[in-house]
Protein backbone atom coordinates (compact mmCIF):
# COMPACT_ATOMS: atom_id res chain seq x y z
CA UNK A 1 0.00 0.00 0.00
CA UNK A 2 1.55 3.32 -1.02
CA UNK A 3 1.62 6.19 1.44
CA UNK A 4 -0.29 8.59 -0.78
CA UNK A 5 -3.08 6.19 -1.50
CA UNK A 6 -6.16 6.34 0.71
CA UNK A 7 -6.86 2.95 2.19
CA UNK A 8 -10.20 1.29 1.57
CA UNK A 9 -11.06 1.63 5.23
CA UNK A 10 -10.37 5.36 5.21
CA UNK A 11 -12.29 5.90 2.00
CA UNK A 12 -15.35 4.03 3.25
CA UNK A 13 -15.30 6.05 6.45
CA UNK A 14 -14.89 9.26 4.44
CA UNK A 15 -18.08 8.45 2.50
CA UNK A 16 -20.08 8.32 5.73
CA UNK A 17 -18.30 11.39 7.09
CA UNK A 18 -19.28 13.33 3.94
CA UNK A 19 -22.94 12.40 4.41
CA UNK A 20 -22.62 13.42 8.08
CA UNK A 21 -21.21 16.85 7.16
CA UNK A 22 -23.83 17.54 4.47
CA UNK A 23 -26.57 16.60 6.96
CA UNK A 24 -25.36 19.11 9.52
CA UNK A 25 -24.90 21.89 6.92
CA UNK A 26 -28.55 21.46 5.86
CA UNK A 27 -29.55 21.28 9.52
CA UNK A 28 -27.85 24.55 10.52
CA UNK A 29 -29.29 26.37 7.51
CA UNK A 30 -32.89 25.31 8.11
CA UNK A 31 -33.30 24.50 11.82
CA UNK A 32 -35.68 26.66 13.84
CA UNK A 33 -33.96 26.77 17.22
CA UNK A 34 -37.08 28.08 18.98
CA UNK A 35 -38.99 24.91 18.15
CA UNK A 36 -36.21 22.47 19.03
CA UNK A 37 -37.82 21.66 22.38
CA UNK A 38 -40.48 19.74 20.42
CA UNK A 39 -38.79 18.87 17.13
CA UNK A 40 -35.85 17.21 18.92
CA UNK A 41 -38.17 14.25 19.57
CA UNK A 42 -38.26 13.61 15.82
CA UNK A 43 -34.48 13.24 15.91
CA UNK A 44 -34.52 11.00 18.99
CA UNK A 45 -37.20 8.71 17.54
CA UNK A 46 -35.40 8.60 14.16
CA UNK A 47 -32.09 7.64 15.81
CA UNK A 48 -33.75 4.91 17.90
CA UNK A 49 -35.88 3.49 15.08
CA UNK A 50 -33.20 3.81 12.37
CA UNK A 51 -30.54 2.16 14.52
CA UNK A 52 -32.91 -0.68 15.40
CA UNK A 53 -33.80 -1.29 11.74
CA UNK A 54 -30.16 -1.26 10.63
CA UNK A 55 -29.09 -3.51 13.50
CA UNK A 56 -31.78 -5.99 12.46
CA UNK A 57 -30.79 -5.61 8.79
CA UNK A 58 -27.21 -6.54 9.67
CA UNK A 59 -28.20 -9.40 11.96
CA UNK A 60 -30.42 -10.88 9.25
CA UNK A 61 -27.75 -10.41 6.59
CA UNK A 62 -29.96 -8.17 4.45
CA UNK A 63 -27.27 -5.53 3.86
CA UNK A 64 -24.04 -4.36 5.43
CA UNK A 65 -21.77 -1.36 5.80
CA UNK A 66 -18.54 -2.55 4.20
CA UNK A 67 -15.21 -2.98 5.94
CA UNK A 68 -15.85 -0.45 8.63
CA UNK A 69 -16.09 -0.58 12.40
CA UNK A 70 -19.78 -0.86 13.20
CA UNK A 71 -19.62 1.70 16.02
CA UNK A 72 -18.00 4.49 13.97
CA UNK A 73 -20.44 4.15 11.09
CA UNK A 74 -23.33 3.98 13.52
CA UNK A 75 -22.23 7.23 15.12
CA UNK A 76 -21.78 8.94 11.74
CA UNK A 77 -25.10 7.63 10.46
CA UNK A 78 -27.24 8.05 13.59
CA UNK A 79 -25.66 11.38 14.56
CA UNK A 80 -25.81 12.63 10.96
CA UNK A 81 -28.71 11.99 8.58
CA UNK A 82 -30.95 10.20 11.12
CA UNK A 83 -30.80 12.87 13.82
CA UNK A 84 -30.88 15.94 11.56
CA UNK A 85 -33.55 14.67 9.13
CA UNK A 86 -35.66 13.48 12.09
CA UNK A 87 -35.64 16.96 13.64
CA UNK A 88 -36.21 18.74 10.31
CA UNK A 89 -39.03 16.37 9.38
CA UNK A 90 -40.86 17.20 12.62
CA UNK A 91 -40.17 20.91 12.09
CA UNK A 92 -41.61 20.82 8.55
CA UNK A 93 -44.76 18.83 9.35
CA UNK A 94 -47.63 20.71 7.74
CA UNK A 95 -51.33 20.65 8.62
CA UNK A 96 -51.93 20.89 4.85
CA UNK A 97 -52.44 17.24 3.84
CA UNK A 98 -51.21 17.60 0.27
CA UNK A 99 -48.12 19.50 1.32
CA UNK A 100 -47.41 16.88 3.99
CA UNK A 101 -47.75 14.09 1.41
CA UNK A 102 -45.23 15.95 -0.77
CA UNK A 103 -42.98 16.35 2.30
CA UNK A 104 -43.02 12.59 2.87
CA UNK A 105 -42.10 12.06 -0.78
CA UNK A 106 -39.29 14.66 -0.70
CA UNK A 107 -37.69 13.21 2.47
CA UNK A 108 -38.08 9.66 1.12
CA UNK A 109 -36.47 10.49 -2.23
CA UNK A 110 -33.60 12.35 -0.56
CA UNK A 111 -32.92 9.41 1.75
CA UNK A 112 -33.12 6.96 -1.12
CA UNK A 113 -30.79 9.10 -3.27
CA UNK A 114 -28.11 9.19 -0.55
CA UNK A 115 -28.49 5.46 0.04
CA UNK A 116 -28.12 4.79 -3.70
CA UNK A 117 -24.93 6.87 -3.74
CA UNK A 118 -23.53 5.02 -0.71
CA UNK A 119 -24.22 1.65 -2.30
CA UNK A 120 -22.81 2.78 -5.68
CA UNK A 121 -19.59 4.01 -4.10
CA UNK A 122 -19.01 1.00 -1.85
CA UNK A 123 -20.04 2.49 1.49
CA UNK A 124 -22.69 -0.20 1.89
CA UNK A 125 -23.69 -3.42 0.17
CA UNK A 126 -26.99 -5.11 -0.45
CA UNK A 127 -26.92 -8.84 0.29
CA UNK A 128 -30.62 -9.71 0.36
CA UNK A 129 -32.02 -6.27 -0.16
CA UNK A 130 -33.24 -3.97 -2.93
CA UNK A 131 -33.77 -0.25 -3.50
CA UNK A 132 -37.50 -0.90 -3.72
CA UNK A 133 -37.46 -2.35 -0.20
CA UNK A 134 -35.81 0.85 1.04
CA UNK A 135 -38.37 2.92 -0.83
CA UNK A 136 -41.18 1.03 0.93
CA UNK A 137 -39.56 1.27 4.37
CA UNK A 138 -38.82 5.00 3.94
CA UNK A 139 -42.39 5.77 2.86
CA UNK A 140 -43.85 3.82 5.81
CA UNK A 141 -41.44 5.38 8.32
CA UNK A 142 -42.01 8.98 7.19
CA UNK A 143 -45.78 8.43 7.04
CA UNK A 144 -45.72 7.06 10.61
CA UNK A 145 -43.53 10.03 11.62
CA UNK A 146 -46.13 12.43 10.19
CA UNK A 147 -48.77 10.87 12.40
CA UNK A 148 -46.64 10.89 15.57
CA UNK A 149 -45.33 14.36 14.77
CA UNK A 150 -48.82 15.82 14.52
CA UNK A 151 -49.38 14.91 18.16
CA UNK A 152 -46.01 16.15 19.39
CA UNK A 153 -45.38 19.20 17.19
CA UNK A 154 -48.85 20.37 16.15
CA UNK A 155 -50.31 19.24 19.50
CA UNK A 156 -53.14 17.46 17.79
CA UNK A 157 -55.44 15.64 20.21
CA UNK A 158 -57.11 12.33 19.55
CA UNK A 159 -60.86 11.97 19.78
CA UNK A 160 -61.86 11.02 23.29
CA UNK A 161 -64.26 8.15 23.74
CA UNK A 162 -67.04 8.59 26.23
Amino acid at each position, binding site marked *: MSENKITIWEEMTILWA*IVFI*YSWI*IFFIFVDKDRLNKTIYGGIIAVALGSLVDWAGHKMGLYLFDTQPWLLVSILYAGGPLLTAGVLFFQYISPNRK*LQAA*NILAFTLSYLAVET*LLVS*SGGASYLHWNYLASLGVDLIVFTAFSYIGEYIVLEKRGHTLR
Partner: protein
Amino acid sequence: MKMSLWLFIALNGLVAVAFGLWLTLVDRLEGRR
Protein backbone atom coordinates in the same frame (compact mmCIF):
# COMPACT_ATOMS: atom_id res chain seq x y z
CA MET B 1 -17.24 -0.04 -11.22
CA LYS B 2 -17.17 1.83 -7.97
CA MET B 3 -18.09 5.51 -8.01
CA SER B 4 -15.18 7.90 -7.42
CA LEU B 5 -14.94 9.92 -4.23
CA TRP B 6 -15.29 13.25 -6.02
CA LEU B 7 -18.36 12.12 -7.93
CA PHE B 8 -19.83 10.94 -4.62
CA ILE B 9 -19.20 14.37 -3.06
CA ALA B 10 -20.64 16.19 -6.08
CA LEU B 11 -23.78 14.06 -6.35
CA ASN B 12 -24.41 14.21 -2.61
CA GLY B 13 -24.06 17.97 -2.90
CA LEU B 14 -26.72 17.98 -5.59
CA VAL B 15 -29.04 15.96 -3.36
CA ALA B 16 -28.39 18.40 -0.50
CA VAL B 17 -29.14 21.41 -2.74
CA ALA B 18 -32.35 19.82 -4.08
CA PHE B 19 -33.45 18.98 -0.53
CA GLY B 20 -32.63 22.51 0.62
CA LEU B 21 -34.64 23.99 -2.25
CA TRP B 22 -37.61 21.85 -1.25
CA LEU B 23 -37.44 23.04 2.38
CA THR B 24 -37.17 26.65 1.14
CA LEU B 25 -40.25 26.13 -1.04
CA VAL B 26 -42.22 24.71 1.92
CA ASP B 27 -41.16 27.70 4.05
CA ARG B 28 -42.41 30.05 1.31
CA LEU B 29 -45.69 28.17 0.90
CA GLU B 30 -46.27 28.23 4.66
CA GLY B 31 -45.35 31.92 4.78
CA ARG B 32 -42.39 31.50 7.12
CA ARG B 33 -39.62 33.14 5.08
